[in-house]
C-alpha cells in the first residue's frame, strides 16, 4: 500500500478509517436507543423523527456551521466541555468524527428501526410468560433478531462517513494529519497544480472503499439473517 500511495495519502486513508470507525461506533448505541424510542408511540415522536433525519436533507455545510456554533470554543457548550473535561472538537479529528457520526446517524436509526419493527411483538409476550424481564428480553430476543439490521446500518453509515466532506471542512477545517480525511485530501490534490495523479489515486481508493462497504453490508445482513433463522 505504501508503495502505491504517498505518505500523506496513506495518512489520509488511515485518518478516514479512524474517523469513520469512531463516528459509527459512538453513534451506534445512540442510534439503537433512538430506534427503540421511535418504534414506540409517544407525544412528539414526529418531531424527534424529523430531527434525527434532518442531517439527510440539510446541506452538510449547514451542519458544519451549526456544529461550529455549538461546539466552538466561544460557544457555551464548547467552552464548558473544554473547561471541564478538556475536550475540544475544534480543529481536531474528534470533531471530524462528531460531524460524520451525526450526519450518518439517520442511516443507522432507519436500518435499526426497520429491523426492530420486523420483530413479532408476540415473541416478547412469549418471553415474558417464560419469566424474562424487560432487559433480559432486549438482550436475548430483540438484540439478536435486530442484529442484521444493526450491522447493515452500521456498515452503510461507515461507508457514508468515509465520504463526508462539507461538514468536516466547515467545522474542523482541512489540517493535514489531523482533519484531512480522504475526500478532503482529494479536494486538496485537485486544487494543487500537478496534483491530478494523486487525486486520481485517491478517487479510485475512495470508490473501492465505498463499494467494499456496500458489498460487505449485503453479505453480513444475509449471513446474520440465516443465523437468525429467517
Amino acid at each position: 500500500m505504501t508503495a502505491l500511495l504517498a505518505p500523506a495519502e496513506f495518512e489520509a486513508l488511515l485518518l478516514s478509517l479512524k474517523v469513520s470507525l469512531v463516528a459509527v461506533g459512538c453513534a451506534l448505541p445512540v442510534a439503537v436507543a433512538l430506534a427503540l424510542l421511535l418504534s414506540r408511540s409517544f407525544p412528539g415522536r414526529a418531531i424527534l423523527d424529523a430531527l434525527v433525519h434532518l442531517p439527510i436533507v440539510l446541506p452538510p455545510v449547514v451542519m458544519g456551521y451549526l456544529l461550529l456554533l455549538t461546539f466552538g470554543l466561544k460557544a457555551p457548550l464548547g467552552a464548558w466541555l473544554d473547561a471541564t473535561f478538556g475536550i475540544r472538537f475544534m480543529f481536531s479529528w474528534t470533531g471530524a468524527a462528531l460531524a460524520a457520526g451525526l450526519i450518518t446517524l439517520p442511516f443507522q436509526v432507519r436500518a435499526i428501526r426497520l429491523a426492530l419493527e420486523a420483530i413479532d411483538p408476540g415473541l416478547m409476550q412469549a418471553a415474558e410468560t417464560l419469566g424474562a424481564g424487560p432487559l433480559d428480553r432486549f438482550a436475548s430476543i430483540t438484540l439478536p433478531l435486530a442484529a442484521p439490521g444493526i450491522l447493515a446500518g452500521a456498515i452503510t453509515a461507515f461507508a457514508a462517513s468515509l465520504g463526508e466532506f462539507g461538514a468536516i471542512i466547515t467545522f474542523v477545517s482541512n489540517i493535514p494529519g489531523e482533519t484531512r480525511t480522504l475526500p478532503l485530501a482529494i479536494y486538496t490534490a485537485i486544487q494543487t497544480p500537478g496534483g491530478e495523479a494523486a487525486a486520481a489515486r485517491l478517487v479510485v481508493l475512495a470508490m473501492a472503499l465505498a463499494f467494499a462497504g456496500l458489498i460487505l453490508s449485503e453479505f453480513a445482513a444475509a449471513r446474520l439473517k440465516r443465523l437468525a433463522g429467517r
Partner: protein
Amino acid sequence: MSIEVSFRHAFADFALDVAFRAPEDGVTALFGPSGCGKTTIINVIAGLVRPASGQVRIGGQTLLDTAGGIDVAARRRRIGYVFQDARLFPHMSVARNLAFGARRAASPLPGPEAERIVSLLGLENLQARLPLNLSGGERQRVALGRALLANPSLLLLDEPLAALDSSRKDNILPYLERLRDEARIPILYVSHSIDEVTRLANAMVVVNDGTVAASGAVDEIMSRLDLFPLTGRFEAGAVLEGLVSRHLPDVSMTEIAVGASRLLVPRTQAPEGSRVRLRVRARDVMLATAPPTSISANNVIEGTVQAVREDAGPYVDVRIDCAGVALLARITKLSRFRLSIGEGRKVWALVKSVSVERTPARAESERR
C-alpha cells in the same frame, strides 16, 4: 382449591364481563365462537392484558386483584402459555427454546421430569433444529415443551391446533391426551372446536359475546338443550363416560357400560375395564315409541323424554333420560307431531354403532 377468574374490561368495540371457576385438575375448555373473547380471558390470566377491574386466583394464590392493588407481573405468575402460532424464538435452536423458560424458572423442573416431558412430546430428535425447519405440528410440540419445562402451575393453550391441517391435528391430539393424563397441572384449553373439547376436556366454560354463558362438567354442559345454539347446532350431542365391559372379537365390536345401559360400538383399542368417552350426536339418534324389531341399529335404549326444546326451523331437540344417562336426539317437528312426543313419554332411542365416536377418557383415579 380452584382457578377463579372474574373481570370486566372494555375495548373500543368489544366489552367483556367474565366470571367463572374452573377445577384445579384436568383440562377445562374455554369454548366459544371466534371473536367471543376467549383469548382475552387467558391473556388476563397470564398477565398480558390488565383488565379495568377484576380478580384472578389460582389455587388460593391471588395473581390479580385490582381493588386490592395486586397485579403480579406476567413473568412471575408461573403460567405456561402456548400460543396459537407457537411463537418459538426464530434465532434459537429447539434445545435453546426449550431451555429458555427452564433457565429463568425460580424452581425449575427436576432433570428426570424434564426428560420425561421431552420424550412425552417426542422432542429428542429435534433438539438441534431451528424453528424454521420444523413442521407446524412439531412447532406446537416444542412450544408445549418450552412452556412445561418452565415448571408452571397452570398451562394455557390458545387453540394450539387451529393453525394445523386436519392430519397434523390428528398427529398432535394424542400428545395432548398424554399430557392431560400425565402432567400434574391444570390446563385451560381455548377452542372453538367441539370435537377437541369433547375429546380432551373434563370441564368447560362456554363463552359467548364477552360473557360466560355456562360452565361445568363437559357431559353436563353438552346435554343442556338450552345451550345447543352455542355448543353447535349441527355438532351438538351427548357426551357419555363409560367403561369397556367386554370386547366381541368375532364381530369386531366392543360393549361399553354407560350407567345401567350397554352400548355396542365398533371395536376400540382400549382394554377391558378402562374408561372411554363416547359422543353421540343428537342428529344421529332416532326415536321410536314402541320397541322396534328387525332393524340394523345395534343400540336400542329405553328411556323417558325429559325435555323438548323447540325453536324456529324444522327441528326439535329432545333429551331422553335412560336410567340416569342423558341422551339427546334431534328429530323433525313433523316426527314429533306424528309420534306425539312430549315430556314423560316413554321412547326407545336408536343409536347406530357406526355413529358413536370414541376417545380414551382420563383414568378414574385422577379425577376427583
